[in-house]
């Protein structure tokens, strides 16, 4: 039976369709989840897509964090459910305190939309296991509030514990501290990434197929976990 990966739609989500499509291209079943529905419908992993949840009023992700679906996802993530937050999804994960730090207005104040090189720095998360350490990948970035900030102690801890998952290389599109593009929680099941892997899954519409690696990784992770469960 194929793995089931949930993709949440918030009011204002705009990459939920692309995320669901990336899930299918990776070989899993995409299950659409609605922000007002606390039931996660037994999915094996969850993707929080990009967009502008609740219009990004107050702060990006601040209101979405209190949605019914997120209350369930926060509990499940603490129990080990793999969760990937892309762009606005990353902002929601920070607002939900599943990931440390915050995403603020791009330092140059401009919206950035371009293909971006990243260096994968941690392959020990649920979402990056099929990459090689130091692998360079090309996926699109498109954000207005993608500047990652945290206090020095948090940044040092992220570095020391190998929780910086990916860094911008050949240019930093938003001023993120220490060129951070993606981070993970202590357990490695929750990953937030500012660029958009779901837009790099097909030659026709993306600059590479590198984004598929994140979805392939979680399927490999889940397959490993399934066999590890005692009968």
């Amino acid at each position: 039976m194929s793995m089931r990966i949930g993709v949440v739609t918030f009011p204002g989500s705009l990459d939920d369709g692309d995320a669901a499509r990336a899930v299918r291209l990776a070989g899993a079943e995409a299950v659409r989840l609605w922000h007002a529905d606390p039931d996660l419908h037994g999915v094996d992993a969850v993707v929080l897509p990009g967009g502008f949840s609740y219009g990004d009023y107050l702060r990006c992700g601040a209101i979405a964090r209190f949605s019914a679906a997120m209350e369930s996802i926060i509990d499940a993530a603490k129990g080990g459910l793999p969760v990937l937050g892309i762009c606005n999804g990353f902002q929601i994960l920070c607002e939900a305190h599943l990931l440390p730090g915050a995403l603020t207005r791009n330092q140059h104040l401009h919206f950035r939309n371009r293909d971006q090189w990243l260096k994968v720095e941690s392959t020990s998360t649920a979402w990056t296991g099929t990459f090689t350490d130091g692998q360079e990948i090309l996926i699109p970035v498109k954000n207005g509030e993608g500047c990652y900030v945290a206090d020095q102690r948090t940044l040092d801890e992220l570095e020391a514990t190998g929780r910086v998952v990916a860094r911008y290389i050949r240019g930093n599109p938003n001023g993120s501290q220490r060129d951070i593009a993606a981070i993970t929680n202590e357990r490695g099941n929750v990953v937030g990434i500012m660029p958009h892997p779901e837009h790099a899954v097909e030659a026709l519409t993306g600059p590479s197929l590198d984004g598929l690696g994140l979805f392939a990784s979680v399927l490999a992770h889940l397959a490993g976990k399934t066999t590890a469960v005692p009968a």
Partner: protein
Amino acid sequence: MARVVVDVMLKPEILDPQGQAVANALPRLGVTDVTSVRIGRRIELEFSGDADLDRVREIADKLLANPVIEDFTIHAGERVEA
């Protein structure tokens, strides 16, 4: 009714690019003696009865501000004629 005002400001150590953009525009108005601009958000809460300031503090801490990057101050005591 009671009105409580919550002011949310970016912490001093967090770069405020919006404030900087405004600061950089001031010389175009002939203003050259402003050394810093910080932009925040004013939120007004109106309560049907008296305001419980401990609850306001919790609301501000959980939702109105992100304590990772922002500080907030609470101003109470304004009574509003219904």
